[in-house]
């Protein structure tokens, strides 16, 4: 019965969580909050423009039609923002929102590199590649 002799788990030779982790996590947490608040602000401005123009039209989401291309691609969204469209601004805010966790992953690569933890640099690069593939490979770029 090894558990009798092991009241505390043996410490591993490598410190499991180096001190740099805390600082990295706090920085990343603040980055995420800033990104979310920024995107919420853009969505709110877009909401005001959209509601001022369309408040009294009928809302109907019963039948799925899919969004027009101006709300489905990054260039389309930018064009509709330039034309001053409220829904374009909302989509821009949502794009910022989607970009926020992606930025967090990108910053984590730098954080792990500073700690010289190349194994986790590798893992994080894989996650970033999946995210970029999803965003750019799905045709919204």
């Amino acid at each position: 019965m090894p558990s009798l002799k092991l009241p505390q788990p043996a410490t591993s030779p490598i410190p499991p969580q180096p001190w740099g982790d805390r600082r990295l996590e706090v920085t990343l947490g603040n980055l995420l909050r800033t990104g979310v608040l920024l995107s919420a602000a853009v969505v709110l401005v877009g909401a005001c423009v959209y509601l001022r123009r369309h408040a009294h039209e009928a809302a109907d989401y019963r039948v799925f039609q899919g969004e027009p291309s101006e709300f489905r691609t990054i260039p389309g969204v930018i064009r509709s923002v330039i034309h001053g469209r409220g829904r374009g601004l909302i989509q821009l805010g949502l794009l910022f929102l989607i970009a926020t966790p992606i930025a967090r992953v990108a910053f984590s690569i730098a954080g792990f590199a500073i700690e010289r933890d190349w194994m986790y640099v590798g893992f994080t690069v894989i996650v970033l590649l999946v995210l970029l593939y999803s965003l750019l490979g799905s045709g919204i770029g």
Partner: protein
Amino acid sequence: MSILDFTVVVGVVSFVAGLLGSLTGLGGGVVLVPLLTILFHVDIRYAIGASLVSVIATSSGAAAAYVKEGFSNIRIGMFLEIATTFGALCGAFLATRIPTSALTLIFGFVLLYSAYLSRKPRLAAQRSLPPDPLATRLRMNGHFPDAGGMRQYNVQHVPTGFSLMFGAGALSGLLGIGSGAVKVLAMDQAMRIPFKVSTTTSNFMIGVTAAASAGVYLSRGYVDPGLAMPVMLGVLAGSLLGTRILVKAETKSLRLVFSVVILVLGLQMLYKGFLGKI
């Protein structure tokens, strides 16, 4: 209903869902899609698109608060995100191919499971388990603040947790939810990560997982600005308020009420899915 009325009502409902979701720790996203489809007759694809966006907002918005407590483990999170992002990508592609009645059925089962899980007593605190060679190599073992100072924990069963996380990611991509329930199953039960560590780390992962399927949803036209706007703003405001008052609130009876709501919504979704009336 006019767009103004619709926006206000959906915003208020989303606010309440976000508030209850964060107070009970059961997540607001899981009730949003059924509420939008059952109460507001929104097509499930639009509902999933709006819910997914709100999931990113709540996860990222709460991250700063959770990080301060010092529970989350960035290495466990990043390693498991490989599984969840791949799963989410697969789930999102699958979502655009399977019929909406099947989506509704799957959603119903996930709701029933979440309701069951929320009533299940929590696993007893991890007592000094021996270090697992793979988890040690991956540097996943860590410390967290406890009543008696810092406590160490050793992560177990990494391959099982990793596979379950792929499933969690796939469900997230398929249904536009955070799939916190499956994540807890993977981290809490399989990997034996202490409860506080697994919930905060899972919250950290949800945003990244959802971002992996958001591109697919956006490009397929599932994200409608007019619907996503009140949902995202409402849920975000509700969940931010929820994390503020979490410490003072008595959540036990609230949890019971919320799990009954989840149960009823799950049965409704199953009924609708079986009839194909969605």
